[in-house]
Structures are given as C-alpha cells and as structure tokens.
C-alpha cells in the first residue's frame, strides 16, 4: 500500500517539484532544455499511472484512499482517492501533456519558462481533479485548471489569444458561479460535500424549498460542467479559445482539459445522481444536440483548428450520450471514448502544428495537394479521421460502438440511430478538410513545402501507432479488464 501512496502523491508532487526546479535553474539552461524536464514529468505520470494500476490489480483493489503530506489527523477523512477510471484519466493526461511538449519544442520560441510553469500547474489541477473525493475540492482544482488555461491562451498576448482567453474566462466564471451555487444548495441539507455522503437520499418527494433547491443544484451543476466541456449550447467559447491559442496549448485544451474539467465532473455527477430520470434525459438531450450542431458547424468552417475544435464539441456529445445511459456499459464506453478522443484529437492538432510550421497558414482555402509533400502528416490525419468517424479497426470505432450499444440497450434506439447518422456528418466535414488540405491542386506558394521533421513527426507517428494498436487490441483489453472485475 505504501507504493500506492507514493504513486498517488507523485501525481501532485512531481509537477510541483518541476515548477521548483524550473524556477531555481539558470534561465538560459532551462530555455535550452525545457523539453527534457516537461517530457520527463509527462512520462513519469504515465509510468506512475500504469504502475498504480498494476499494484491495484495485483492486490485486487477497486479503489485506494490516501492523503498527501502524511496521514490526516482526523481518521476516516481521506482527501484523495484513486480508482481504475481515474487512472485511465491520469494516463490520458500524461499522454496529451507529452504530445504538447513534443509540439512546443517547435512552436514555442519565447516564454519557455512560463510555458513549463503553466503546464505544470495545469497538470496539478487535472491530476488533483481526478483524484479528489470531495465536491468542493473538485471545484478548487477545476478553477486551477481554468485559470492556468486562461493564462496559457493569453500567454503570447496576440489579439486573438487575448480575445479567446477573455471569452473563455468570462463564460468559465459563470460556470464557477453555477457550480458553487449548486454546492451551497446541496450542503444546506448535508453537512459534508464528500462523494460518499451525498446520495439519492437527498431527494425526498415532499414539496419543500430544500428539495427544490437540490434539483436546482443538479441543474446548475449540469450547466456548469457542460460549459466547461463545451457542450452545445454552452459551446461558443470553445472554438474561439482553441483556435486562438498556440497549437501546443490547443492540443492540451482540446485533447484533455475539456474532458477533465467537463466530462469528469459530469461523470462524478452521474455516479451520484445517475438514477434520476430527468438527469438522464437532459444529458441525452444536450448530448444529441451537441453531436449534431457541432458537426454542422464544423462543416462550414475555414480554419483548420476551428474545424477540429468543433469536432471536439461533437465528440463530447457522444461521451455525454454514453454517460446519459447510466449503465456500466455506457460509462465504460464514455471513458473509452475519452481515451480514444484524446489520441485522435491530439493527432489532428499535431497535424495542425506540422502544417502551420511548414506552410505558415492554417486557412484551409489557401492549402491543397499536401498529400504528396507531407505523406506522414497526411497518413496520420487520415487515420485520425477514420478513428473519429468510427471506422474499424481504430480506437474510436470501439468506443463509439460501446456508446451506441449502451444507448440501444437502455431503450434509446432513436438516439442510437441519430448518433449513427451523425457519423455521416462527421465524415462529411472531415472529408472536406482532407480534400482541401491534402488533395487537389497545390497553390504556387506551397510548391516548396516539405515534410515536417523532428519532434512533431515523432509525435504524429507515436499517436497513430497508439490509435491503431489500441484499436486492434481493444476487445482483448476489455475482456482483460472485465475478467479482473475492474469494469
């Protein structure tokens, strides 16, 4: 158990010590070698997640409670908790952070030290959020994620960056207000806000103000986390923020932040209130709206990153649909989709970085015929696109399949049908993207473009391999997890 304790603490202490190291070292030294520090942190995070999973599996534990800085003085109050689901999230965080570092080597020229600091605080926020066992601490880490993201988007002080940042900030603050209001309404009835103490016994059928307030709290918290996840109609900030940030930051935001800040919050809510019919219906409604509207909006954008950002909106809708079933299958599908979405969305943003580095533009109308000039990028983006659209045997296919099956199984055949139809829209907008960027005539100014080299190429190949391998092995993984009783 001691090892698990170390692993759990590592998720918070490693980034903290990285901040410390970053700031005491010589500035020039850090500027030169910042990627080693951050890359090591990301790798360590992945290793720690796998290690913790291994130990929990060996001891047949389903969750492990611990506290940082020695044990708490009051027994019975454990502040952190890790379980297989949070380990999956932690692994995804490590993976996307690693990709971000790989991209940043090429894209970030100034303020490298600040990038490291903010990446580490973002990591602490995300790690903390998936490990806490108390709704208020969840909110605190949510805001840590939020504030780090605002600063990261605005970091280079371009017009667009500042604009995206301030829009994100304002709408995100509304989310904070909603969530805090919800928390205070819930704590009017219960003394404590830890996950164990809140349950469905909160809801009585009597018509009194307290019960109404609990329902209001559920509504407010759905709205708050939906804002953070970029669900339609709370999505407007998302494409703005994700488009305007540097690509190494967009990949973090789109690849993992919206999932931790939004989807993990809704996942926690589902564990607590998942049985309420109205809760399920509203999640399903929001999910299907964002699947369709996200795809429709993505189909008429002209900026590479904006298309990919709207595609995130659409995919978040799928995850919400999976959560809305409230069944084990649906939740497994949602978590699996979190993983596969992290993989393929990171690939697409890495492609964006590659294209931006080589051509200097991301407007898809100015591009064309890059397939023969950038074969690796074209290949990886095709694989990512196939995975997004849910074509077997890639990772996205299995997770979408699980979600659709869960929807079908829970009696929502019509929703399942809609979700399948929306796949056609998904492929439509991605084919448009592929057609404009990789096929067709090459414009004059792009005739000397070559394939990207170095870390971005490495990240592309790595992520493509992950998408393919996980896709092929997915049934085996699921069978393995099931045989261990972990899902």
């Amino acid at each position, binding site marked *: 158990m001691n090892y698990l304790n170390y692993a759990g603490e590592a998720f918070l202490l490693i980034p903290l010590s990285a*901040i410390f190291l970053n700031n005491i070292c010589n500035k020039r030294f850090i500027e030169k070698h910042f990627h080693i520090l951050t890359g090591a942190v990301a790798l360590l995070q992945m290793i720690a997640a796998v290690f913790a999973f291994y130990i929990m599996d060996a001891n047949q534990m389903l969750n492990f409670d611990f506290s940082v800085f020695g044990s*708490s003085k009051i027994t019975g*109050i454990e502040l952190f908790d890790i379980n297989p689901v949070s380990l999956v999230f932690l692994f995804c965080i490590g993976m996307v952070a690693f990709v971000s570092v790989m991209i940043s080597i090429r894209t970030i020229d100034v303020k490298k030290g*600040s990038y490291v600091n903010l990446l580490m605080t973002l990591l*602490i926020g995300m790690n903390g959020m998936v490990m806490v066992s108390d709704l208020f601490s969840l909110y*605190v880490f949510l805001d840590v994620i939020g*504030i780090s993201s605002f*600063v990261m988007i605005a*970091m280079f002080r371009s017009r667009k960056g500042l604009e995206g940042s301030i829009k994100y900030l304002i709408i995100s603050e509304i989310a904070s207000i909603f969530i805090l209001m919800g928390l205070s309404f819930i704590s009017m009835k219960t003394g404590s806000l830890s996950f164990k103490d809140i349950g469905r016994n909160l809801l009585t059928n009597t018509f009194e103000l307290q019960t109404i307030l609990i329902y209001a709290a559920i509504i407010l918290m759905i709205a708050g986390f939906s804002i953070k996840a970029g669900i339609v109609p709370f999505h407007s900030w998302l494409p703005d923020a994700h488009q305007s940030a540097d690509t190494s930051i967009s990949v973090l935001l789109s690849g993992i932040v919206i999932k931790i800040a939004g989807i993990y919050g809704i996942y926690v809510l589902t564990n607590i209130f998942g049985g309420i019919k109205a809760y399920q219906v509203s999640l399903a409604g929001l999910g299907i709206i964002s699947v369709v509207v996200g795809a429709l909006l993505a189909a008429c954008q002209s900026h590479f990153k904006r298309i990919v950002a709207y595609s995130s909106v659409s995919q978040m809708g799928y995850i919400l649909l999976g959560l809305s079933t409230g069944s084990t299958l649906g939740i497994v599908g949602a978590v699996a989709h979190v993983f596969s979405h992290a993989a393929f969305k990171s690939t697409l943003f890495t492609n964006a970085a590659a294209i931006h580095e080589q051509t200097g533009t991301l407007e898809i109308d100015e591009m064309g015929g890059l397939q023969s000039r950038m074969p690796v990028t074209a290949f990886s983006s095709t694989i990512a696109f196939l995975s997004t659209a849910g074509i077997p045997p890639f990772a996205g296919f299995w997770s979408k399949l699980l979600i659709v099956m869960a929807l079908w199984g829970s009696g929502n055949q019509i929703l399942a049908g809609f979700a399948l139809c929306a796949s056609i829209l998904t492929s439509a907008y991605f084919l448009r993207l592929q057609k404009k960027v990789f096929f067709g005539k090459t414009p004059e100014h792009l005739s000397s473009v070559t394939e990207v080299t170095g870390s971005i190429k490495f990240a592309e190949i790595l992520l493509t391999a992950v998408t393919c391998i996980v896709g092929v092995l997915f049934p085996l993984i699921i069978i393995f997890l099931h045989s261990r009783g972990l899902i």
Partner: protein
Amino acid sequence: MATIIYISLAFLLIFCVMAVMSHSLLKSAIYLALASATLGVILYVLGAYWAAVIEVSVCSGLITVIFISAISLSKIKKEEVQKLYSDKKRMWFLPVMLIVVGVALIVLALANDLSLTNTAEKVTEDFREIFWNTRQADIIGQIVTILIGGIAVFVLFRDDEDKK
C-alpha cells in the same frame, strides 16, 4: 440579529445594483467595496468571524486596489466612457426586473408556504482545525492558484517581451 441582517441585506442589494448601474468605473469599484463590507457584516452576525475578516480585507481591499490600478492603467476619459457605454441608460430595466422577480419570489414562497429551516444543530468546531486538518486538498489548490497568480502577473503584465 434578524433586524441587522435585514438592514444589511437591503444595503447589500442596493450597493450591488449601484455598482452595476453606475456610470463611472471608479464609483462602481467603490460601491463594490461597500457591498463587500456589508457582506462582511452579515457574515460576522451569522458567526463566521474568520470569513468576515477575510471578506472585508481581501474583497473590499485587494480587489478594489486591483480595479483601481486597472482603471488607471487604461487612460480613457470619463466623459468618453459615459458617452460610449452609457450603462445607466442601457440598464434601466434591471431595477424593474429585480423588483418584479423579488415580489414574485416572495409571493410564491408565501403562497406555497416555502421556507428554509435549519437542518441540524450547530456543531462546535474550530475553524482552524477543520481548515488545516481536513481541507488539505483545498490548501494545495490554493497554493497552486496563488502560484498561477504570480506567473500570470509575470506573463501578462511584463512589457519587455512585447518589444522583441
């Protein structure tokens, strides 16, 4: 106790509305500080002494300072601000809406006999013990937040790198 709370609530609402509707940003900031102070009174009366102290010192102190420095950094003339934004004119609807909603809420509550009641007896607990012993996760969060604040000041306010 209830009387003080009613009076402070009235002041709180009025200060908030004034802060929202006032023409001049400086006045807005001052009204906000006053609202903060009034809220501090309410917290104190309810028995949240520590929270009241922090509220008064930080919210009505620090945040006002931040505002005023931000206002002074932006050198727009007062008349221009009024002409450009004319908040009072654009927000005339707010007091009406507040009165309507407030009356509606009270009528609804009276009609359905809805009211909040205390759910449990007061527990004697020391704030400091609770804070340091059971809220360690929050403390980590706070430390990191303050760290980000420092980084933000460093990244967003420093001028030199813009010139490069």
